[in-house]
Structures are given as structure tokens and as C-alpha cells.
């Protein structure tokens, strides 16, 4: 009996439906249940569930002579609905054979009511399954704009995992080029990229990993003349700089603009990380009011660093970013986490706001751009 009925209504293939839809003047009706529609549907498809057809079809398809194409999951419900429409006097009706399954199999695009495509729902499913994340959380990540200062040791793993997570805009500040000695830890780069600007190399890797991410290259050195404008474009910042002047400059500007900074550092077998949210917790200067002299702050190139340290601390930074974007968990605000790789030991220290901090203290004066990151004693800046 089903076979007999199936000979009465026009059935068209998915690609044919696509062509007709593109030509315009088609009323497209989705004859599934609401939760299926939410999951994924054809753009401009109007939902009319089977049980409500008689009541709602007039609103969805007021013109009974207009070309009306119906679809469902696999082609059965839409076929029956098409018959019902014909019984109601619709004269130009077709059902899409194979339904939305066939449509997707043929590579045609779908949208979701939530704002993610079906491809995105697949890519981020391990995130959206988590109750603390869900589709809403993933959308927050896709809409977030994060700036990474430094696309080197810390920046590399942080950028990789933030890109994988679907952070929609990732800015990279670095004026350096890829060097062979970087590849022991800066895994976003590779041998073919030696000599390439780091921001460009990172962008290429990220684009291959996740096309949802917009990578913005800032191939210059940060200074007090460019930092305020740059920071304004982002929601939060990751400090992966390799020198003190940049760290203090970043701190002073981020406090002024009220941008959170996730800040880590590494050397030999040790790492530190904390999250600075202006006025909610301490700032970098509350923690380190004065930078040390050069002999107490060697660079990785002078002293060495175990390659994995970059990954370990970089991913802790990425974790902080995701918590801040999603608004879940407990970020390291007012907490300094120390990690020693040789003993695999974590230590947590408390960091307090300094009421007399020259940048975030209650009586801190407003300072002009040119004074951002500065200290009275400039000799202190031989470090790094």
C-alpha cells in the first residue's frame, strides 16, 4: 500500500531541491519535530510538525499554488505531508527524497537554531556534551577574542589549544621569526617554517587545525605607543612574553583598560602562572613591584628550559582562558601556582592586592601612555 501511495506525489532529489531553492520562489517546509529542527535544518525551512500540519500549514505556506517543497529526516514523513497538502488543495508540491540525511550526504549546508552549523556541532561535540559548557558555552568561545603576547614557548601551545577549542579570534603579537632552536618546544611551528615570521607560521598551523578561527597577526614589538589601541580590540590577554619590560607594560595597560591577563613564565624546570583580573584581584605589580637585576632573571636562551615546560604552563594558560570565557570554575585570581617539573610538584601561593600599588591601588594616579610600563630606576631593565 505504501508503494502505491508513493507513486502519487512528486519526489525530487536533494540537489534538485537545492537548485530550485537557489532559484527563488520556493516555500520550504520542514515536517519534523522541534528538537530535530533545533539540531539542524535547511536554511529558510519553516517548521510544521506532522501533528500540527492542518493547523499551521496555512501560516507557513499561504499560497496554495506556490511551489512548495517539503522535507523531513529521511523522506517518509514529508511524503505523507505532501499528500495531505495535495488533499488540502495545494497544486505544486514536492517531497525531497532521502530527507535532510540525503541533503547532508550530498554536502549541502544546514544551519542550527543555536547558531552553530552541523559541522561545528560535530567538531565541538566533546565540549557541548559537558553540562558546564553546552552549546551556549561553545558559542561564547566562538565569539571570544583573545590576544596572545608572544607566539613562542608559551604562546605556541596556548594558541594551538585555544584554536582547537574554537576561540573565534586569536591575535598573535610577535616580531620574531622561526628558528631551529625554537622547535624543541614551540610546537605550533615546524622545520619548514624556519625563517618565517612566527605569527605567520602560527596562523598557518591554526588554519589547518580549525578554519573557524580568525587569526590576526600583529607582527610588531609592543610599546607604549601601540599597546592601548591593540588591547582595546580584545577581550582578554595571554602573557607569554620573554622579558620584563613587556610584562610590566602589558600589566599597566591592561589594568587601565580593565582587561584580564593570564600570565605565566618558565625557566629550566620551573613554571609560574597566575591570572590578573584588574581590581578584582592583584595585578602583576602587586606581585612583583620591582623587576630583578639581570643576574637573577636569565632568559631561556641563556639558561635553558625543558621543552615540555612550555606545553605544561601554556596549557594551564589556555585552561585559564577557557574558564574566563565560559565563566566557570575558579580562575587563578589571587593565586600563584608554581610548578616544578623535576619533582612534578605544584605549590600554590596567595597573592594579595597591594593597596599602595602604583597601578591598581586605591590612590594610584592616572598615568599618560608614555609612562606605561616604566620604573623610576631604568637600570632595573637590564634583565631579560
Amino acid at each position, binding site marked *: 500500500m505504501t508503494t502505491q501511495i508513493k507513486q502519487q506525489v512528486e519526489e525530487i532529489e536533494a540537489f534538485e531541491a537545492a537548485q530550485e531553492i537557489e532559484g527563488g520562489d520556493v516555500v520550504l517546509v520542514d515536517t519534523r519535530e522541534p528538537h530535530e529542527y533545533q539540531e539542524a535544518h535547511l536554511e529558510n525551512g519553516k517548521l510544521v510538525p506532522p501533528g500540527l500540519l492542518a493547523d499551521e500549514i496555512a501560516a507557513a505556506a499561504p499560497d496554495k499554488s506556490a511551489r512548495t517543497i517539503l522535507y523531513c529526516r529521511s523522506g517518509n514523513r514529508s511524503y505523507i505531508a505532501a499528500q495531505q497538502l495535495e488533499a488540502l488543495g495545494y497544486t505544486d508540491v514536492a517531497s525531497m527524497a532521502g530527507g535532510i540525511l540525503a541533503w547532508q550526504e550530498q554536502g549541502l549546508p544546514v544551519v542550527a537554531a543555536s547558531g552553530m552549523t552541523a559541522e561545528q556541532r560535530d567538531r565541538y561535540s566533546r565540549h557541548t556534551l559537558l553540562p558546564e559548557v553546552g552549546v551556549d558555552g561553545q558559542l561564547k568561545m566562538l565569539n571570544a577574542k583573545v590576544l596572545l603576547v*608572544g607566539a*613562542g*614557548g*608559551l*604562546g605556541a601551545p596556548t594558541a594551538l589549544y585555544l584554536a582547537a577549542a574554537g576561540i573565534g579570534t586569536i591575535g598573535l603579537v610577535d616580531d620574531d621569526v622561526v628558528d631551529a632552536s625554537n622547535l624543541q618546544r614551540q610546537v605550533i611551528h615546524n622545520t619548514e617554517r624556519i625563517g618565517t615570521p612566527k605569527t605567520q607560521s602560527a596562523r598557518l598551523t591554526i588554519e589547518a587545525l580549525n578554519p573557524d578561527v580568525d587569526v590576526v597577526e600583529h607582527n610588531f614589538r609592543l610599546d607604549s605607543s601601540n599597546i592601548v589601541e591593540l588591547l582595546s580590540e580584545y577581550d582578554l590577554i595571554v*602573557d*607569554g*612574553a*620573554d*622579558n*620584563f619590560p613587556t*610584562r610590566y607594560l602589558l600589566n599597566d595597560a591592561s589594568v587601565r583598560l580593565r582587561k584580564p591577563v593570564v600570565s*605565566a*613564565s*618558565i*625557566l*629550566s*624546570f*620551573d613554571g*609560574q602562572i597566575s591570572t590578573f583580573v584588574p581590581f578584582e584581584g592583584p595585578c602583576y605589580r602587586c*606581585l*612583583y*613591584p*620591582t*623587576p*630583578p*637585576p639581570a*643576574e*637573577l*632573571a*636569565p*632568559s*631561556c636562551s641563556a*639558561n635553558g*628550559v625543558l621543552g615540555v615546560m612550555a606545553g605544561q604552563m601554556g596549557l594551564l594558560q589556555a585552561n585559564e582562558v577557557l574558564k574566563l570565557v565560559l565563566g566557570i570554575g575558579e580562575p587563578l585570581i589571587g593565586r600563584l601556582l*608554581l610548578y*616544578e617539573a*623535576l619533582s612534578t610538584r605544584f*605549590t*600554590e*601561593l*596567595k*597573592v*594579595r592586592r597591594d593597596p599602595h600599588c602604583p597601578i591598581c591601588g586605591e590612590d594610584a594616579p592616572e598615568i599618560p601612555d608614555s609612562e606605561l610600563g616604566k620604573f623610576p630606576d631604568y637600570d*632595573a631593565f637590564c*634583565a*631579560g
Partner: protein
Amino acid sequence: MATIRIPPVLRAQTGGQTEVEAAGGNVGEVLRALTAAHPATEEQLFGPEGDLNRYVNVYLNDEDVRVLDGLDTGVSDSDTVIIMPAMAGG
């Protein structure tokens, strides 16, 4: 005796040790015991006036001694004193 954790940049001055035990009733005494045993650390920790250098953070367990009683902060045998200058590497 309290335990002092030595940061990487000072380990050369303590013969490579990452932890040093030191006797003292307060943080100042414990650090002076360290500088007595390893004189090369004195210059890094203390300024010419005998104050702790501002760029060196010292913690008693998990609290910066600046929010406690500074060098006068009391120390017991089960305590850990952590010396921590800033690191910039990235």
C-alpha cells in the same frame, strides 16, 4: 628547623640544593642562617641596609611575608620559607 625552598636562580649559590634546612625563630633569622651557610646568597637577598630586596618575594608557607610581619614573621619547624624572584621567560 624550617625548610627553605631555593629558586632555580639561586641554586648555584647553594651548591645545587633545592631545599635547605635552617634554624631561626623568625623569617629574618632563618634567611640569615641561609646566608651564613651560603654567603653567595646574601647579595641576592639583602640590600646594603639589611632589608630584604624588593625584587625578591619571600613566602611563609603560602603567604607573602610582606602581608604578615616581614622579616619578623615567626617561623616554626613545620614551616616552609619559599624564596621567589620573578621569572620572565616565555
